[in-house]
């Protein structure tokens, strides 16, 4: 009986969002309640299943499901520690984003289409996380591209279509590069399952050119989604999408899919040993460092809140890449835990930006003056997210940066510390003015006289509850994971478990 | 003897064909061309068939060839009439148009 569960569980996790998604497509716009019910049923059943799997994996059980696909490359879904890190993050944030999106889109058109694709997106993300080999990863990676496109162009305006085209141009090109890389590796080595330490070391002598090309292709391809420097351009453009989509794209699905792919590639395909033989990580490290600085500087130049957050993402996601590229165990812990922490903080920030826009029609930084008086709770959440990004203890961001810094010292790359310091200062430079304006500056008009804003009945009612509560929830998570980082079930502890397995001799 | 006669007839028939063709090419209008052509058809073909009949070893073959000659004569007569009438009609039309 147990073996059956172990095969079915990975599929069930993917299907728990896929099936509601497909059902939602067939609904009419007016079937409001049914749609919400389906969404929530999907969310909670997924959380339940993920919890089950987490428990199992921590007990050392193996979860694996496979069907035949290409010659020598089955479709494999498996739950290991690394994939669960990502799956758990996605599922929890899906819960928050779903509730947020229901509130955000209340009364607008095309909701069936929106939630349908939204669920497909989550399914693709989860599938990508659970993928047991490169070909399976590729399948879900491309599906993710397809599923997010309708969300980017959801509004149907000219600007949205243009952004959608830019998004596609980048991600499809990236997808093709990844495809080529995967196919090249398949041609050289077949497609075995991901295994800690990689499976390519026997080929280093014979196929150096092939392996190098494949790595470059795949890092470039994955780098598109992870918004690495030369190919990051889609991310700020994609900001025209509705707020829940921005939150989902930036915190969970797309950028993390890219980063996660790089993690898989480095640890479970090439392996640290092979990569250091091929000397490929130097370039990746420099690229990531450059992206961190460049993203921060560009963020500083933006005057729109969402654009600033977008460039901040460009910068922050590269911390993960940088941590991975250092090839040391402590840096790896930092990278893995940053995957989660950055997600929590950034989604909070985007929720807040959405709340500002939705409640008071505020899009620009200069309009934020005195916002704390009108929306104190949202502003507080925003503060938590921003401080976490800068790396102020005890918020989660501090933990990951701490480990990354230690990792840099451990691997002897002390120049990276300077990158972190520099970036931290820039972070402060682009977030603190927002906080200052929000809490201390005088509003341009009295909030009571603001054309958009009715005076809230109470503090808890500053905006729609479905917009407020998810924001507070994720902000709380960002603090809790920071404070309780030392406990057994924190993301940090889980990251240490993963690294212990990856770097096991 | 028969051989020689046959050859003579064949040459004669061929000559009529040639003359008819020359006429077709040289005569000025449709009517005189038709005149040349029909001579070639009927007489030329008749002579050729006569010449070939002398060489035939079966009566059936001779009858067959005669039959062919008759058919060709009938059809060329009809076709000739058709063409002449058509030409006459169009001549009339054009002279009417001229007035």
């Amino acid at each position: 009986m147990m073996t059956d569960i172990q095969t079915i569980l990975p599929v069930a996790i993917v299907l728990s969002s896929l099936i509601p998604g497909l059902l939602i497509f067939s609904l009419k716009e007016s079937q409001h309640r049914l749609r919400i019910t389906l969404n929530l049923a999907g969310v909670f059943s997924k959380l339940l299943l993920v919890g089950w799997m987490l428990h199992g994996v921590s007990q050392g059980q193996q979860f694996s499901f496979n069907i035949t696909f290409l010659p020598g490359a089955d479709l494999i879904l498996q739950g290991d520690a690394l994939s669960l890190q990502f799956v758990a993050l996605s599922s929890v944030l899906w819960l928050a984003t779903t509730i947020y999106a229901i509130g955000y889109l209340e009364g607008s058109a095309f909701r069936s289409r929106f939630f349908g694709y939204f669920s497909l997106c989550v399914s693709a993300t989860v599938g990508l996380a659970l993928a047991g080999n490169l070909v399976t990863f590729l399948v879900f990676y491309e599906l993710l591209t397809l599923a997010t496109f309708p969300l980017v162009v959801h509004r149907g305006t000219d600007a949205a279509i243009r952004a959608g085209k830019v998004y596609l141009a980048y991600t499809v090109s990236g997808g093709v590069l990844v495809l080529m890389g995967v196919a090249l590796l398949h041609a050289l080595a077949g497609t075995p399952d991901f295994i800690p330490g990689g499976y390519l070391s026997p080929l280093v002598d014979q196929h150096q050119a092939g392996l190098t090309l494949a790595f470059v292709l795949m890092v470039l391809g994955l780098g598109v989604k992870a918004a690495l420097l030369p190919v990051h351009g889609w991310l700020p453009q994609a900001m025209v999408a509705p707020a829940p989509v921005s939150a989902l794209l930036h915190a969970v699905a797309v950028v993390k899919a890219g980063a996660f792919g790089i993690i898989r590639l480095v640890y479970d395909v090439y392996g640290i040993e092979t990569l250091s033989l091929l000397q490929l990580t130097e370039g990746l490290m420099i690229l990531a460092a450059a992206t961190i600085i460049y993203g921060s500087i560009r963020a500083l130049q933006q005057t729109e809140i969402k654009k600033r957050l977008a460039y901040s993402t460009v910068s922050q996601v590269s911390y993960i890449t940088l941590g991975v590229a250092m090839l040391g165990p402590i840096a790896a812990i930092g990278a893995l835990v940053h995957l989660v922490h950055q997600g929590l903080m950034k989604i909070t920030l985007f929720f807040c930006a959405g709340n500002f826009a939705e409640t008071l029609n505020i899009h620009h930084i200069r309009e934020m003056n005195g916002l704390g008086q009108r929306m104190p709770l949202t502003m507080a959440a925003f503060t938590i997210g921003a401080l976490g990004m800068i790396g102020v203890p005890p918020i989660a961001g501090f933990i990951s940066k701490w480990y990354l810094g230690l990792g840099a010292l451990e691997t002897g790359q002390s120049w990276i510390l300077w990158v972190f310091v520099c970036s931290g200062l820039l972070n402060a430079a682009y977030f603190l003015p927002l906080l200052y304006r929000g809490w201390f500056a005088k509003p341009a008009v009295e909030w009571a006289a603001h054309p958009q804003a009715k005076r809230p009945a109470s503090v808890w009612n500053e905006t729609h509850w479905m917009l407020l509560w998810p924001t507070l929830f994720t902000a709380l998570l960002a603090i809790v994971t920071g404070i309780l980082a030392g406990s057994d079930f924190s993301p940090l502890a889980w990251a240490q478990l993963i690294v212990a397995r990856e770097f096991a001799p | 003897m028969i051989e020689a006669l046959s050859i003579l007839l064949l040459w004669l028939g061929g000559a009529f064909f040639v003359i008819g063709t020359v006429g077709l090419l040289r005569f000025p209008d449709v009517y005189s061309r038709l005149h040349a052509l029909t001579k070639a058809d009927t007489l030329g073909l008749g002579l050729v068939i006569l010449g070939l009949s002398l060489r035939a070893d079966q009566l059936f073959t001779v009858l067959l060839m005669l039959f062919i000659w008759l058919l060709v004569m009938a059809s060329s007569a009809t076709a000739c009439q058709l063409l002449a009438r058509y030409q006459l009609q169009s001549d009339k039309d054009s002279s009417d148009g001229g007035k």
Partner: protein
Amino acid sequence: MNAALVSMVVPFFAAMLVLMWRPQQQSWLVIVASIVSLLAAMMALLSVIDSGPQSLNLGGWESPLAIRFQLMPVNALLIVTTAVIHLIVVCFAASSHHCQSIKQAFWPLALLLHGSLVALWLSMDLFNWYVTLELLGLAAVSLVTLAGHKALRAALDYLLLSLFASLTYLLGVVMLYGQYGTLDIALLATLTEADRVTQTALLLISAGLMLKAALWPLHLWLPAAHSSAPTPVSALLSALVVKAPLFILWLLWSRVAPSELAVPMGFWLALLGGGALMIGGWSACRTPHLKTLVAYSTVAQLGYGLLALGLLLHWQLNDLQAALWLFVVAHALAKTSMFLAAGEIQASTGKKRLNSLRGMTLTMPVALFAFAVAGGSLIGLPPSGGFIAKWLLIQPMLIEPAHWPWALLVIIATLLSAAYVFRVVSQGFRQSSVSATATEHGKSAQWLALLPAILVWLMALFSEPLLQLMDVFSA
């Protein structure tokens, strides 16, 4: 073998029945005939899987004299594909409101086209192929003229080029017969030598076939003919008819041609395939009309077939034939879906241009979705049939660094196809100024358009048995 014959004969008989009795409800008869043909085709496929390739000498005469039929995995698969697509297309024609005007004449012609296709797939005889190619050409042109006066010019050009191609093909065939005294493919394969006559004959045959298959640079007639035809006809032509010459081309070069000729020719064919991919894709990205875009996409996608065929010959790699035929089948299904969806959209808006697609996600969501899903397979997104074919194609390209330039070609082609597919899809997401609501009528036609697109993605799940089938054959 008998099942395959049934699959071929049933459409012929049904066509004659429809012509003779002229029943009021023709569509049911046609649909039933298509179902029977499909069932028979499946049985034929099963029998090939069970007992391997089968050969039949028509009339019971010995081999060089008789026309020979052969049922192999490849053509069994093609017969099934033909039957599936015909079934879908006739159901579409029966249910779409926009096809009412063409119906009377459409049924018998479509049936005859079906029968002729199966006859072509089965045959292994050079001259018999000439007759079946003529059948296909005449049926196809007649079907194009169903669209009315606007299509006549395109139909005439199509017919003249098709006749010219047939005669070129025939001259080559005659030369081969003159040299080797047989028309049978298998016998020729044992006899051919790399001499001047053979070379000229093969070149003539190839030129004719490439013109008929609209392989670049002989493709110029295709966009006009395919885009001006009625919707179900466009689907049949693009999905099936252009594949028939490719089948002959493949048999000829991979079996009959001696390798001294095949290896250099393979290089040129592959190069032409690359040209088709580039030029076809580029034209599809530029054209302002929806159906023309889909037609140019056919030109481009046929380039993949030619590329696979060329590389198969150039590297003498029999593994690539799986790629070739999966491309053909995947493209057939995807293109059916695309043309049906595009035609249904065009008919309901009444406009040809691409920008009339605004707001289609609301008014005709299923049709647009079908277009997008089919487009996914054309681009080669996993896990679709198109992806598997592309995967098989690029494997041998990647394994040797010297072959990497070909892979670059495939990358560019993929990006071009993505560009033209999303050109259409993103228009559909654009907000429309008129507040349109979902139209209820025509729903069934839209779902029928979606069906082949779903099938092509399902192909991915059955790729293992499909590839085994191909392996049986190459072994």
